[in-house]
């Protein structure tokens, strides 16, 4: 079989995690439109600073440049993509077809998500598909790896992906979330990126629970950059499963004028350092959400250089 892009210039996420190296991933949020210069700038900026880059799939149910297309651009630029696939906008046929394509273009890692609901986005009257969801998507991929589509039909050439999933440590209630975490592993998830965590004590408690369920699966902490007090207020009020604890709110509030972003950078650098030093998890996923330019600074402040890991 011929893979059109078969030169893997970078080690895969699987190779990094399984070698025991602390994984550092970033995130590319594609633009709404065809002006992709800034996105390419971010890709170029991050491709050698992080091991891999997630590409969001119509994030927050807002229509954007596609995740699959962006994953290819990341490959073209010499980076390593982690393709996010949600079940909101495509039924099982469309998802399977996309996965066939992704595999033949050298995409090796897929993050399986259910997807946000339609009403939170910018196409509020659209039909939410949800033909399948994250657990079933993992099963679909596993079947495709065994040479079958979800209709039970033989594939002429299957796929092979490092299958990722997400888990929400701040979910309330947490018990059903942990059972779902377990189900995702059973369905084939090999590694996890968490939804945003800020409260590191809560994250530690979550990791203890998660390790009790499964101590083999790789888990990377999802960290979202705090940029301003307004952003914190918005997140605490509106973003499900995200909670910025009081001591960080205080730290941000006490930042001198014009220093909010720098304070946010310092907080994230400290969290990354804590994850590494206290061996809390297997990696971090940095979500800078529009401030990708500062990711190299975050890593520098955290003393993280992936070329020396």
């Amino acid at each position: 079989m011929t893979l059109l892009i078969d030169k893997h210039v970078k080690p895969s996420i699987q190779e990094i995690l399984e070698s025991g190296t602390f994984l550092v991933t970033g995130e590319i949020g594609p633009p709404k439109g065809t002006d992709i210069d800034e996105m390419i700038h971010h890709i170029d900026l991050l491709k050698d600073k992080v091991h891999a880059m997630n590409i969001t799939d119509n994030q927050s149910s807002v229509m954007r440049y596609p995740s699959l297309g962006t994953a290819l651009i990341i490959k073209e630029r010499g980076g390593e993509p982690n393709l996010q696939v949600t079940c909101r906008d495509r039924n099982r046929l469309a998802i399977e077809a996309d996965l066939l394509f992704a595999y033949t273009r050298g995409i090796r890692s897929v993050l399986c998500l259910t997807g946000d609901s339609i009403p939170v986005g910018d196409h509020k009257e659209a039909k939410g598909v949800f033909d399948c969801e994250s657990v079933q998507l993992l099963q679909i991929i596993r079947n495709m790896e065994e040479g079958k589509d979800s209709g039970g039909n033989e594939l002429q050439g299957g796929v092979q992906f490092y299958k990722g999933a997400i888990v929400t440590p701040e979910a309330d209630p947490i018990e059903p979330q942990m059972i779902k975490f377990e189900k995702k592993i059973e369905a084939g998830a090999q590694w996890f990126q968490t939804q945003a965590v800020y409260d590191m004590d809560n994250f530690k408690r979550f990791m203890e629970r998660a390790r009790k369920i499964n101590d083999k699966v790789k888990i990377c902490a999802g960290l979202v950059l705090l940029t301003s007090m307004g952003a914190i207020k918005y997140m605490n009020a509106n973003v499900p499963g995200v909670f910025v604890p009081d001591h960080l709110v205080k730290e941000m509030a006490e930042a001198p004028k014009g220093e909010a972003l720098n304070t946010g950078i310092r907080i994230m650098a400290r969290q990354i350092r804590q994850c590494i030093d206290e061996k809390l998890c297997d990696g971090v996923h940095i979500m800078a959400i529009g401030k990708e330019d500062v990711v190299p600074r975050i890593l520098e402040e955290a003393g993280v250089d992936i070329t020396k890991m």
Partner: protein
Amino acid sequence: MIITTSKPYEEVLKELEGEDKVFIVGCGSCATTCETGGEEQVAEMKAKLEAEGKTVTGTMVYEEVCHELNTKRKFRENKEAVEAADGFLVMCCGAGVQSVREATEKGVHPACNTVFLGNILRQGNFTEKCSLCGDCVLEDFGAICPVTRCHKGILNGPCGGTDEGKCETDKEKDCGWTLIYNQLEKMGKLDRFRRIYGLKNWQANMKPGRVIFEKKGEGGE
């Protein structure tokens, strides 16, 4: 119970443009309970249309407008008023409107939006608990339907959007999966929650749905 809401009056008026003589059909079943097409609402609509300068040739409210044979019979019984009308305003669900469609060649217009198969919480307060998927999964989920009561209709547990047991789409709405979890836990049946649910057959009721029961005693001597 089929839950309906009334279309805005302006929309109804627009539907009736060019039809000056109108016959109004209301329903004694669901639309009466919903107060969208009972005797009272039909009388109100008649008065409003007449104030508009329209002639209401007749009205009728009877049980189960969705019953096509019965609707045809009712039309025959009201022959004079029916024949005098340019069109029909039907104040009930979409099934009732289309039942009227089968009874006349004239204009047929919906006065309501049909919103869901609903449970009655109390008068004027309805909630959706079943979405007629054709392949009932209630046995597996403590008799709480994830297909309907989870906004995304997902089958393997809550999404990441659940917050304090509420849904990410509306803080007033319970997260269906939190309800299911609590119910199964209470029953000591969390093993059902742990089970991976495979892809659902969304074609169990292939649109347009059709069911024909064999008549009892038929086929024998």
